[in-house]
């Protein structure tokens, strides 16, 4: 049924018009597509790509925050941050599990990540330089992620939608934790306020870039929208995020680093400046501050621990052999 059965299977479907039409009808009727249901190859492929990217993002996302756990300023913050990063690992796990229902193994996906052929959210290619960054990441990065994730709870593919529901439930404390950290800093000493403002300055634009390229240049969107894998456009979500977040920043007494930011009474939205799309594409291509460092760390962890995984596999085999000879 799941990955182990489908690995190597060609999963061919006869994709004539009638088939595609029938499939689209199921989607339009808000039916959930489940692992063994017939589905267009392009649907399966798009889902694997999207779910895998999401999973990789959670895994790489553990690194910028993970590097501050040992330096968290209080016991309460240390515990909360460790729990948050653990959740992120868990989210990656749920997502790999969802991807595996589509006929690809976790090992293959991890291999793609470590080889550098898979994409993950480029926000994690920015460094976490101060404790305030931990606040900014929780507030802005998790905030942006939540904007993306809530609509995905209604995605057409059953396992992905269920994984997203679980993730969204767990995610609610992440953003609150980040905002609380920023709050305390913003109301604290001069040094703390400066730290918070500096973190906001560095994470604001990269957070907006999390919603992807502008609708005009996004190549995957059309089919994804029709198949209810994607439920809102990049620009729609980006605007939603800005509208939600600007008042939060004002409440903190911090300034958003955008001189073009202004409230448009007519439209009922916050207008914001043009993103630096050069920077966006550079980071996506692999030229961000931490791209190489992140992968190096994951590769190192993977390689240095190969002996552990091999030992576990060898032990399981020995055990199975012992059970077999005991039974005979």
């Amino acid at each position, binding site marked *: 049924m799941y990955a182990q059965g489908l690995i190597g299977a060609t999963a061919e479907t006869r994709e004539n018009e009638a088939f595609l039409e029938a499939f689209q009808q199921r989607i339009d009727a808000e039916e959930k597509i489940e692992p063994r249901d017939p589905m267009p190859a392009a649907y399966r492929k798009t889902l694997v790509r999207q779910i895998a990217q999401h999973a990789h993002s959670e895994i790489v996302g*553990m690194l910028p925050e993970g590097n501050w756990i040992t330096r968290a300023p209080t016991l309460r913050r240390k515990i909360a941050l460790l729990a948050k990063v*653990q959740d992120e690992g868990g989210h990656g796990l749920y997502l790999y599990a969802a991807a595996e229902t589509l006929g690809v193994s976790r090992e293959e996906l991890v291999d793609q990540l470590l080889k550098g052929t898979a994409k993950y959210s480029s926000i994690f290619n920015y460094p976490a330089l101060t404790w305030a960054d931990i606040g900014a990441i929780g507030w802005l990065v998790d905030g942006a992620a939540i904007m993306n994730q809530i609509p995905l709870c209604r995605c057409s593919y059953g396992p992905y939608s269920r994984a997203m529901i679980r993730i969204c439930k767990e995610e609610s404390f992440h953003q609150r934790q980040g905002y609380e950290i920023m709050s305390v800093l913003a109301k604290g000493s001069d040094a703390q306020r400066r730290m918070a403002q500096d973190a906001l300055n560095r994470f604001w634009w990269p957070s907006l870039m999390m919603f992807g390229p502008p609708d005009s240049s996004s190549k995957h969107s059309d089919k994804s929208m029709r198949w209810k894998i994607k439920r809102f456009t990049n620009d729609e979500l980006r605007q939603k995020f800005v509208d939600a977040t600007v008042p939060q920043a004002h409440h903190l007494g911090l300034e958003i680093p955008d001189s073009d930011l202004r409230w448009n009474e007519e439209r009922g939205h916050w207008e914001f400046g043009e993103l630096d799309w050069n920077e966006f594409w550079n980071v996506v291509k692999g030229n961000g501050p931490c791209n190489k460092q992140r992968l190096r760390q994951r590769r190192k962890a993977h390689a240095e*621990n190969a002996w552990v995984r091999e030992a*576990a596999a060898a032990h399981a085999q*020995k055990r199975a052999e012992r059970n077999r000879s005991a039974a005979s």
Partner: protein
Amino acid sequence: MAQADSKFVLRLADDHLILGQRLAEWCGHAPTLEEELSHANIGLDLLGQARNLFAYASQLLGGTDEDRLAFLRLEHEYKNVLLVEFPNEDFGYSVIRQLFFSAFMHPYWQALTSSADAELRAIAGQAVKEAAYHVRHSREWTLRLGDGTEESRQRVQTAVDDLWSFTGELFEVDDLYRQMMEAQVAPDPVSIAPTWRETVVATLEEATLQVPTETWMQTGGRVGRHTEALGHLLTELQYMQRAYPDMAW
């Protein structure tokens, strides 16, 4: 009804803080995604217990709080056993360090559930369940690493040999500890030793590992004389509190 001495509570608190910190270092570096979560769980358990113990110690001392105690003492003022500050040389060291520590803490917390100190009884009630799982987790990994591949056996045997001399400290009794025993606050380690040995020896043997025969034991943690590793650990732990003194976080 008796009350623990704050110095005794701090020893236990330090044990859990330092080991919790070592486990937190595995974040992003574990062998599998599942182990990332397992190690984080154990780290969270230990840090949670540390927090309870620091809170209690600060209550007993008065005029301080859990964070001042956890973050602002000098190296020689930390009284954890040397075993817990041992660096994460590799996954095998981490597993064996956990096995040695938890095989002690599980029966120890069990005994503390009958402590004359009410607060320690309460903390122990929760901690004993957590420690049971820590023993199980480290035991199972010891079996897989010891009785896995030739490479894993060699690596984990090295860890066992290196860490063995740090186990004696768990059972040390000094004047402070004797007072705690007399007040029935703490158990006699002599009563813990057989359970500890049984768990450890049975696990190592089943894992096809050699049980070291070395009898010389490292010491010094309980009087604040540490290994070189602790200084570096504290540098990271204390950085924010030292760089930004007297601020709220």
